[in-house]
C-alpha cells in the first residue's frame, strides 16, 4: 500500500515539479525585464508597470488563477486556454509566471539599486558601455545580494504550486486527496508534506551552495 501511494504521489509530484521549473525559467528573466521597466526614468513606462506590480502583489494568487483561467470565457466568451489538462496547465503557468515575475522584479530592483553609484562611475570613466557595465560589473554583485531573498521566493513557489488545484490542475495534493474518495484513507494527503519538505530541503542546500560560491568577494 505504502509503495503504491508513494508511486502515485510521485506521479502527482511530477505535475508540481513541471509547474515549478517552468515558472522559474520564465519568471526570472521576465522579472528582470519588469524591474528595468519599474526603474525606467520615463513615467509612461514606469507607472503602468508599478501599477501592475501593485495589483499582482496586492491580490491573492488563488484569485489570479481563477481570473486568468475563467476570465477569457466569462468576459469574452472564448475558450482561450484550450481544453483539457494542457489548457489548465497553460493557464496555471501564465498566472504563476506573472505573479512570480512581479515579486522577483522587486527583488531585482532592490538589488540593482543597492549597487553603489561609484561602481557605475568607475565603469563609465573606464569607457565601458552600458551593457558591459551591467553584465561585467553590476550583475554578479546583484546576484550575490539577492540570493537570500530569491531563495525565499523559490521555496514559497514550491508550496504555492498547490494553489493550482483551484483550476483542477493535476499535482501532488490533488493526487493525495484522491485517496480519501477512492480508498477512504487520509494519510496519503498528509504524506504529501514529506515530498514538499524533501524538495525544499534540496533547494535550501542548493542556495546555500550558491551563497558559499559567491563568498569570495564582498
Amino acid at each position, binding site marked *: 500500500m505504502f509503495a503504491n501511494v508513494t508511486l502515485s504521489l510521485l506521479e502527482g509530484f511530477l505535475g508540481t515539479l513541471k509547474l515549478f521549473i517552468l515558472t522559474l525559467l520564465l519568471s526570472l528573466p521576465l522579472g528582470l525585464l519588469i524591474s528595468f521597466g519599474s526603474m525606467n526614468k520615463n513615467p509612461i513606462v514606469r507607472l503602468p508597470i508599478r501599477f501592475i506590480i501593485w495589483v499582482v502583489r496586492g491580490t491573492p494568487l488563488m484569485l489570479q488563477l481563477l481570473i486568468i483561467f475563467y476570465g477569457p470565457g466569462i468576459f469574452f466568451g472564448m475558450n482561450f486556454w484550450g481544453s483539457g489538462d494542457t489548457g489548465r496547465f497553460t493557464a496555471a503557468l501564465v498566472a504563476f509566471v506573472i505573479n512570480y515575475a512581479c515579486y522577483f522584479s522587486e527583488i531585482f530592483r532592490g538589488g540593482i539599486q543597492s549597487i*553603489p553609484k*561609484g*561602481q557605475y*562611475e*568607475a565603469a*563609465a*570613466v*573606464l*569607457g*565601458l*558601455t552600458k551593457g*558591459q557595465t551591467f553584465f*561585467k*560589473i553590476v550583475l*554578479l*554583485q546583484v546576484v*550575490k545580494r539577492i540570493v537570500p531573498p530569491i531563495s525565499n521566493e523559490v521555496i514559497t513557489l514550491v508550496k504555492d504550486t498547490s494553489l493550482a488545484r483551484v483550476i483542477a490542475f493535476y499535482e501532488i495534493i490533488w493526487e493525495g486527496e484522491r485517496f480519501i474518495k477512492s480508498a477512504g484513507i487520509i494519510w496519503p494527503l498528509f504524506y504529501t508534506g514529506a515530498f514538499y519538505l524533501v524538495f525544499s530541503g534540496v533547494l535550501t542546500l542548493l542556495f546555500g551552495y550558491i551563497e558559499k560560491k559567491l563568498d*569570495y*568577494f*564582498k
Partner: protein
Amino acid sequence: MAILEVKDLKKSFDNQEILKGISFEMEKGQTLSILGSSGSGKTTLLRCLNFLETPDAGTISVNGNLLFDGAVGHEKGVDLREKRLHFGMVFQQFNLFPQYTALENVTLAPKLEANGKSDEEIIELGKELLVKMGLEDRMNNYPHQLSGGQQQRVAIARALALKPDILCFDEPTSALDPELTGEVLKVIKELADQHTTMIIVTHEIGFARDVSDEIIFMDNGVIADKGTPSQLIDNPSNERTRQFLANYLK
C-alpha cells in the same frame, strides 16, 4: 601647445551655480593641484572633465581637439566614451570592482577595449603597473583582502592601464587612515617625477606643495588664486588663500 585647455566652464545644480566660469590650461607632463574648502567646486570641476557631470557652458579641449562645447551640448554613446578615455580618474572611495582580483580590475577595461592587443600583452602591462605600485604580491587578492591604501594603488594602476592623457585624482587619500595616506602619496609623487600629466584635488597641502608644478585655489566656484607652490603656499598674496591656509595650518 597646452595638453588641456578649459574655458569658462559653468555648472549648476538645482539653480545653484557651483562652477561660475572656470578657465585654465596645463602643459603635458605637469602636475596641477586644486585646493579649496568643501563646496568650492573643485570636485565638480574634476567630474566635468571626466564627463561624469555635463557642464552647462564652456569648452574643454585636449591636445587642441575640442572635446566639449557647452554651446553644442553632449552627444552620447561611442563619442562620449572615447572622449572620456582622454582622462583617467581615481576616486576618493577607490570604487574597485569587488568580484575581480587586483589584476583583473586593472586588465578588465583594456581587455574590453582590446585595440588589437592580445590578452597576454594586457596582463603583462597590468602586472607591470601593479609592480610599479608596489603590489607585486597582491595581484591575485580581491579588494576586500586589501587595505585602503593598497586598494587605492590598484585603482591608480587601473586608471593608468588605459594610458590616459591626463590622470585625475579626486581627494585620493581622504578615505584613508592617516598611516595609509603616505603609501598612496608616495606613488603619486613617483608618477609626478616621471612626468605623468595629473590633476589632483586634495586637502593635503604639504603634499600639493611637494608634488605640484602649479596650484589652483578655488573658492566659491571660481579660481581665486593660481601659481607655483612657492607663490601660492609659501608667499600667498591673495587674502582668501591666506585665510584658507591659515585654517589648515592651525
